[in-house]
């Protein structure tokens, strides 16, 4: 983790009519860190992430992602980030190879780069036998790992992961986090939302959102100290007990 700030937000707010989804959230994310964005369903995590990715325009406040302004330079932001959505993001009716080629190509990778990196990726994920199969036929765990790898294929500065390990078995989850660590070691900043509290332990720093507001922002260790808790679960209960909003 370095001291370079890759995501800087200042009172970022999103309103839907009278409903304030995120209320003046302010935080910094440093290059190379694994930044966990925790919270109950309905707390505003996905809304926050969508703003940072350029999928949604903030109602007020400022932010800079990879040095680019969130309002005026959203296309430049997009060149420098990767994204893995909650709903599945690869094309089920294309093969593994075709999906990789497609996403690599639209991020501007040359054919040579593509071929090299693709072979590497397939090797690393152990998908050699499945490379020509339609993605729709793969089991969920493999799809998730593939989706993540495709999201960072073009070596973006930051990758946004929205609840990436939903519905996946513990072994696969562990493997998934191995991939995240490897990416972090390479210098990619990981911004991940989750409500699996044990995953919070894997992050460098976490924030906890409740009712659209950031209630905590620190390393897991320090938070557990602060709330005299032994697990992040307990920290979460402490903070989220008074939450008024229940569902996303």
């Amino acid at each position, binding site marked *: 983790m370095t001291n370079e700030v890759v995501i800087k937000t200042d009172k970022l707010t999103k309103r839907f009519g009278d409903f304030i989804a995120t209320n003046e959230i302010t935080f910094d994310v440093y290059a190379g860190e694994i930044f966990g964005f925790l919270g109950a369903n309905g707390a505003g995590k996905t809304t926050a992430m969508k703003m940072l*990715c*350029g*999928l*949604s*325009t903030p109602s007020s406040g400022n932010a800079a992602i990879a040095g680019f302004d969130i309002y005026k330079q*959203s*296309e430049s932001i*997009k*060149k420098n*980030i990767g*994204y893995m*959505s909650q*709903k*599945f*993001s*690869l*094309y*089920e*009716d*294309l093969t593994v190879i*075709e999906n990789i*080629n*497609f*996403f690599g*190509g*639209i*991020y*501007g990778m040359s054919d040579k780069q593509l071929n090299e990196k693709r072979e590497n990726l397939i090797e690393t994920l152990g998908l050699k036998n499945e490379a020509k199969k339609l993605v729709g036929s793969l089991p969920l765990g493999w799809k998730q790992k593939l989706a993540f790898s495709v999201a960072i294929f073009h070596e973006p500065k930051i990758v946004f992961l929205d609840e990436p390990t939903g519905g996946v078995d513990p072994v696969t989850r562990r493997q998934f986090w191995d991939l995240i660590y490897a990416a972090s070691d390479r210098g990619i900043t990981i911004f991940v939302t989750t409500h699996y509290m044990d995953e919070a332990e894997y992050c460098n720093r976490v924030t906890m959102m409740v009712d659209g507001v950031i209630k905590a922002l620190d390393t897991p260790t320090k938070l557990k100290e602060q709330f005299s808790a032994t697990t992040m679960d307990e920290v979460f209960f402490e903070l989220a007990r008074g939450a008024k909003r229940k569902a996303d």
Partner: protein
Amino acid sequence: MRTLKFLLQKEFRQIFRNTSILRMIIAMPIIQLLVMPLAADFEIKNINISIVDHDHSSYSQKLIEKIIASGYFKMNDYSNSFNQSFLEFQKDKSDLVLEIPKNFEKELVRENESNLFIAVNAINGTKASVGSAYLSRIISNFNSDIRLDWMQPQKFNQTPTIEIATLNWFNPFLNYPFFMVPGILVVLVTMVGAYMCALNIVKEKEVGTIEQINVTPIKKYHFILGKLIPFWVIGIFIFTLGLFGVARLVYHIVPAGSMLVLYSFLSIYLIALLGIGLIISTYSDTQQQAMSLAFFAMMIFMLMSGLFTSVDSMPEWAKWIARCNPVTYFIDVVRLVVLKGSGFADIKNQFLIMTGMAIFFNGWAVLNYKKTS
């Protein structure tokens, strides 16, 4: 540009992998093109007529013979009783009832005048007018015939006769499929193009992959071109298959005009049409919605295009709707070029309007499509 190449690769792969849909969008138009022109025939033939003959004279016999010999009418029943024939008429077994009064021949000879009564089933107004027009003409001719026979040879042709010479240009045999096939082809290509395009984009919205695209640096116009081009190609393919496959091989329709002119117009038309499909997709979140909007639009387009009923016969307000309908222009152009060999100069106006429409619809779609909400 590379981005576009990747987008197109993906789109074509997805379309061709969906074999059931692919088969449908090719087979259905072809089958319909084969069957429908045979059905869409306005010519009034086989009109059923009931004849009530109270006279039983040689004149009435001759008249009846002439009516049947004309080939337009099929005699459903022949009787003495009007009520009986009217029953058949009510049951839709006959379309006309001709009543020849008692003493028809006698009155003609003695008083120089006699009346025939014709009842016409006018539920189908056109059939009624045309049917009664045919019958009137046959009766007229019969009238001239008996007059000629009646008059002494020295006094032949006392009355002035006008001879009408009819010339039918471009389609001398009045072949109906000739006229209907190009029009039906246009409608089929239109349906496939617009539906498929709209549904395709909305499906990505429903499934979620569109979010993934919106997050990338793909420009709006790349994405839209990536969606338009494959369906543009498919549209041209189906049109070609229909024109040179079905129309030529089955109906022996050989286009009289320049293919360059036709295909240039087709290209612009498809762009305009797919633009409409795009607009529909930007206003829909689910496939069901897209389908509802598309169906509604297509229905109106089809009815107001001049395919089955002529635009000239519409009231002024309806003509304006027809003028805003891209299908109207293409059907017009297809008929002009294929059947009459019209050239570029003849369809200049249609060309300009279609280009305007293409720009308008696609511009609207591009403006509406937002990567960020």
